[in-house]
């Protein structure tokens, strides 16, 4: 008789999967804090953020994995005093996470492809940069100025996010080779 695990959250994740995803959030928080102390480059936080969002999707290939990581990361950031934007930090993490999950819905095995990961990494990071733009638009910034600022900010975010995403396929391959995640597990 096969033993099956109980579903714990969002009608899809077992407790073990959910805790693994929450540790991806922990690692985002850690790397974010570490980088912030020594590198003051715009957009650099997207390097590890996108890496762990995509890795979370690879380790738990279910729709919603990245979103759960984004949600936990943003709430943990607020609790630990690491977000300067208050409630905006939720938007800043959830938007790119939703892009990753959307990509997973369209192409469930995309995390094994270098090109796909890079594309998703860049797109998700661009969207995150757009969150700040939204605020500036609400505050009434001149559109031309806003656009110029956005181009710079989005460019940096996209670059770092894309770079971070490039490392994911190799790590997924090693985790599979070492038996930690199923070989090409049926992604949903």
């Amino acid at each position, binding site marked *: *008789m*096969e*033993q*099956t*695990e109980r579903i714990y959250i969002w009608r899809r994740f077992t407790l*073990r999967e959910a805790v693994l995803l929450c540790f991806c959030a922990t690692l985002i928080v850690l790397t974010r804090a570490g980088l912030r102390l020594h590198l003051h480059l715009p957009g650099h936080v997207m390097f590890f953020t996108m890496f762990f969002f995509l890795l979370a999707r690879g380790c738990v290939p279910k729709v919603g994995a990245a979103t759960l990581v984004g949600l936990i990361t943003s709430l943990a950031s607020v609790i630990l005093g690491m977000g300067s934007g208050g409630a905006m930090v939720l938007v800043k993490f959830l938007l790119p996470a939703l892009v990753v999950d959307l990509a997973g819905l369209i192409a469930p095995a995309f995390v094994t492809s270098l090109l796909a990961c890079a594309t998703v990494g860049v797109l998700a990071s661009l969207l995150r940069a757009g969150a700040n733009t939204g605020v500036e638009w609400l505050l009434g910034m001149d559109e031309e100025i806003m656009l110029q600022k956005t181009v710079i900010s989005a460019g940096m975010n996209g670059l770092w996010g894309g770079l971070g995403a490039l490392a994911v396929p190799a790590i997924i391959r*090693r985790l599979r*080779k*070492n*038996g*930690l995640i199923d070989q090409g597990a049926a992604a949903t």
Partner: protein
Amino acid sequence: MHDRVLEIERFDFTYHGAAAPVLEGISCAVRRGEFVCLTGDSGCGKSTLLLAVMGLLRGGRRQGAIRVAPAEDEAAPSAGILFQVPDSQILCSTVAEEVAFGPENLCVAPDEIAIRVREGLRAVGLEGEEARSVERFSAGQKQRLALASVLSMRPGLILLDEPTSQLDAAGKNELVAIFALLKARGHTIVMAEHDPRPFTALIDRYLRLEGGRLVRDDATPPDQVRYRPKAFLLPYSATLYGTRPVLDVQGLDVAYPETGRVLKRATLRVCRGERVHLFGQNGAGKSSFLRCLAGLLPADSGRVWVAGTEKPGPGTLRGRLGFLMQNPARQLFAETVREEVAFSLERLSYPAEEIDRIVDETLSFCGIAHLAERAPLTLSFGEQHRVALATVVAPRPVLLLLDEPFAGLDFPQRLSLLAILGRMPIRYGTTVLIASHDELPDRRWADRSLHLQEGGIAERAA
């Protein structure tokens, strides 16, 4: 009221993807108030059986039946379990929250939870610590806290999975005393333990597992394995390397803001080729001392000279110093064992053909040549331990430091590790220094035995 608290009937279990069952045909029973010990070597299925009793096994195939009598309190669980590693079983930030966690999940009334928290903490000697942060606790205190969090649920059966494997002698004694009290109060306890000697006075019955099968069920304690590798009989010889020092530490001071001074003018001189055992309780400063030697922790004052380098920094001793930290398997990352062992040699710019030769020789030396093409993280804990050892041995370091290398290993594995380390001075000219809170499985291994206590290092009598 049930006289039998636990009944296991022809129980088999096979992990998902495994060729052979990990448990086969297990049948036994445990009566109310008994203290039963599940014993056997690593990998025999002790922990798996406890998880099966708790209903925590995931995936896999099972056959047979396990019946646990309900607890006296209807709302209480039939069984509670204390795991081996305290750090990952403690889920909350404060002591009170942790002990309250179980009753909260059972929807116990808040004022009743407070009572249970106090009772649980009193039972394990942590009364008054409710508001304390768990981060500050020693390993022994954490394990006691984890036990309190189990007791607060008032389970009918208490399961203990290698509860003292991470603890020093003092921590073990504390837990033994608590288990004695629990037994005196009539609790039913089943403990998995590969070395049950500290608990002999408490244990009513031993269930010995071998290869997943129950081979013995009686009150006779198991024999300790005896194995005497000949290498131990060769003492340190000054004629091999003279009395050249490989390590010279003078007046080393290290202090931490939270805990104060851990090393006070520590002094040590080790000659090349010696086998040294540094003994000390948890928190004595062994790890800090080794980290200073490796250049990973700057000392507050004093002189450190290691393998020809004064005041080493991180990265300055590559190739000359090997360091095996506790839980060494955490450093593994490659796709094969061969790649893993070759990594350091590649970084030291060894020629390719030389790398192959050294890797083959190192794998044979460590007894894992048959694992060369396996993925390191698919191996058992003991095998991973050997792979990690091979990675630090491969560059033939002048000095090899080992911090708690026996944690998680059973007795035969410890002896086997000592045998390998015992041959290193003769084979490679490596000086070996082991730091541990346990005595060595065979005290003859050490040419010198030292005690780190109250910040200082002193020689111990043979």
